[in-house]
């Protein structure tokens, strides 16, 4: 164990990895602090570059970018009342109220220090849980994986902020995309329309770039391009940061735990963790009347929860290959490309690499403190970069990124089609996140279903034969019943009244 840890630490403390972390942190802070550009989008654009790096710096780049982008989303939230990423939306009013009172440094200091602490606590919990979970999961077989995949998809629908029906539609779109290509059982090409490039399925990274970057570019260029941003002056930060930790440490601890657990749920992720932590903070606060008027407590809770969730999402990702959110889905894609297949045995087979990722996570959260202060200080300049210049640049990166992954222009078509699809989906209030999980988990579910069917010779009851599988199966079916029957019961009650 000690040997693995020291080997992992040694592989992180190299010039290449540290430089990657530094550059990714700067990139994440920049992209995160521009309204409309999400953490997922910044990671999707980064993937083609990580492609050509070694495994440790590649994953370090992804986790650093996510963590810093999620924090940086707070900057325009506090200063302009426009959250930079959806994860900051929960407390944007609170932070902006502080700015209006001329105390922007209070809100920004609180979100920076809680983001860093929440992130570090999240990684420590990740190390603890992932290892424990792996111990249990070694005994899992195709039945358990099938149910885990189903449970993941179902909770993605259950926790999405949109209506169940629209989230389900999004999920089906994702599953549909996952069926394209050669079938694993018989090798029959499905829905390829004769295109050779589709035999391997829809390439994941161009799909992600399309769904997150291209759709956002289209949305931005069709809306107001002219708006000017005015940023107020910001006072000293470090004093407030220390005071926040002294005063609110129980909140930070509590919300980091909560955020981590929520992050581990597939589909939940940092956005939902922030909303739930904020509302719980208000409920448990001694002074709930101060919420909404520019009071740090809610920012502290939600700010630590969303950064802790980033690490939590990696727990099921590493052990089961089931990502907690879209960013981690991209992360898994990169891991697999590097020849590391997430599994319960990943701690034995690639232990040093996994611990190296954890160390990279911690370093990323620590350098976020000084870099975050820098980002807040330079917010004035970043926020004044006009969109009409930024969008063509992002488009250039998107096109090149999609092309570079497979070295074929076909990937650019994939990006274009899925970008338009995502634009259409968002215009119709259909969320994107369930579709991403559908793309990732569709193959997992189908494969484990077919393997189980071969094992049990077509007996569907085989899915309930093993105790853990039966437990997971019952939980999934109960969740389906709740999702389907809930609205029905509500409707019948309404009729009676």
């Amino acid at each position: 164990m000690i040997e693995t840890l020291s080997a992992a630490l040694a592989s992180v403390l190299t010039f290449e990895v540290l430089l990657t972390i530094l550059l990714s942190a700067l990139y994440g802070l920049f992209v995160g602090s521009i309204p409309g550009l999400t953490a997922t989008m910044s990671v999707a654009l980064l993937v083609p570059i990580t492609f050509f790096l070694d495994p440790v710096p590649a994953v370090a780049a992804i986790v650093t970018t996510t963590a810093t982008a999620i924090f940086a989303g707070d900057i325009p939230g506090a200063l302009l009342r426009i959250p930079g990423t959806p994860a900051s939306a929960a407390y944007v009013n609170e932070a902006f109220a502080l700015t209006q009172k001329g105390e922007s440094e209070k809100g920004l200091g609180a979100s920076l220090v809680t983001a860093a602490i929440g992130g570090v606590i999240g990684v420590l919990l990740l190390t603890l849980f992932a290892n424990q979970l792996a111990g249990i999961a070694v005994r899992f077989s195709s039945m358990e994986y099938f149910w885990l995949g189903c449970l993941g998809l179902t909770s993605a629908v259950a926790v999405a902020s949109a209506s169940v029906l629209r989230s389900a539609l999004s999920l089906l779109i994702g599953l549909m995309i996952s069926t394209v290509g050669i079938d694993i059982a018989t090798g029959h090409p499905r829905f390829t329309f004769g295109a050779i490039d589709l035999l391997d399925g829809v390439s994941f990274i161009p799909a992600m770039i399309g769904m997150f970057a291209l759709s956002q570019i289209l949305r931005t260029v069709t809306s107001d391009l002219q708006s000017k941003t005015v940023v107020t002056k910001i006072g000293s930060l470090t004093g407030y940061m220390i005071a926040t930790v002294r005063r609110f440490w129980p909140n930070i601890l509590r919300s980091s735990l909560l955020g981590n657990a929520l992050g581990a749920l597939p589909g939940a992720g940092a956005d939902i963790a922030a909303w739930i932590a904020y509302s719980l903070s208000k409920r448990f606060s001694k002074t709930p009347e101060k919420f909404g008027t520019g009071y740090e407590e809610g920012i502290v809770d939600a700010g630590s929860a969303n950064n802790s969730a980033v690490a939590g999402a990696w727990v099921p990702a590493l052990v089961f290959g089931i990502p907690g959110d879209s960013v981690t889905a991209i992360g898994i894609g990169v891991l697999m490309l590097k020849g590391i297949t997430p599994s319960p045995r990943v701690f034995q087979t690639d232990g040093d690499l996994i611990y190296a990722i954890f160390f990279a996570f911690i370093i990323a959260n620590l350098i976020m403190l000084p870099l975050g202060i820098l980002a807040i200080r330079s917010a004035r300049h970043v926020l004044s970069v006009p969109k009409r210049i930024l969008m063509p640049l992002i488009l250039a990166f998107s096109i090149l990124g999609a092309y570079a992954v497979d070295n074929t222009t076909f990937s650019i078509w994939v990006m274009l089609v899925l970008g338009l699809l995502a634009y259409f989906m968002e215009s119709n209030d259909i969320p994107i996140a369930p579709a991403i999980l559908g793309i990732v988990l569709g193959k997992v579910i189908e494969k484990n279903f077919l393997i189980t069917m071969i094992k049990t010779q077509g007996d569907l009851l085989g899915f309930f034969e093993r105790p853990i599988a039966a437990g997971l199966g019952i939980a999934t079916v109960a969740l389906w019943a709740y999702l389907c029957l809930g609205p029905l019961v509500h409707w019948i009650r309404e009729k009676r009244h």
Partner: protein
Amino acid sequence: MKLGDLPLGLLAGLFGLAVVLEAMSFPEMGGMAYGPEFFPIIVGAGFCLCGLVLIAGDLRRRLTGKREALVSVEPSLKQGKALLRAAAVLVTVIAFVLLVKPLGFLLTLALLLFFLLRCLAAGWGISLALALGLPFALHFCFTSLLRVPLPRGFVETLLF
């Protein structure tokens, strides 16, 4: 473009039906009840079900007198300029795919960046500077640092 629940439900239902029909034509796996067609049929059926629920909900609301537009267009899209800007983005992507092989990476990206920047009303100076500078920077990053071969054209042959 936002569809009302009725057209959206119809779209989902018809798509689901098409998926199911296409999946039925897949060859069966010898001696197995579940083959390549099984999963797509479930997904297609799911689309049909979602479509039906959407249509039913819309019809129920219509019966109670609440009417919703079949299709509505976002106000931002009604401005001709906004639509042209979106079209410029799509043209850029498509033109890149078509031009990059004959013209090479550098020239294609420079021309298209300049085109798009001007379409979004960026200044002449900055447009020219970015269109001349960025392709070279990206070319250096991808071919020299990341070792991804980019399509070569006469500019590349001339310079490198």
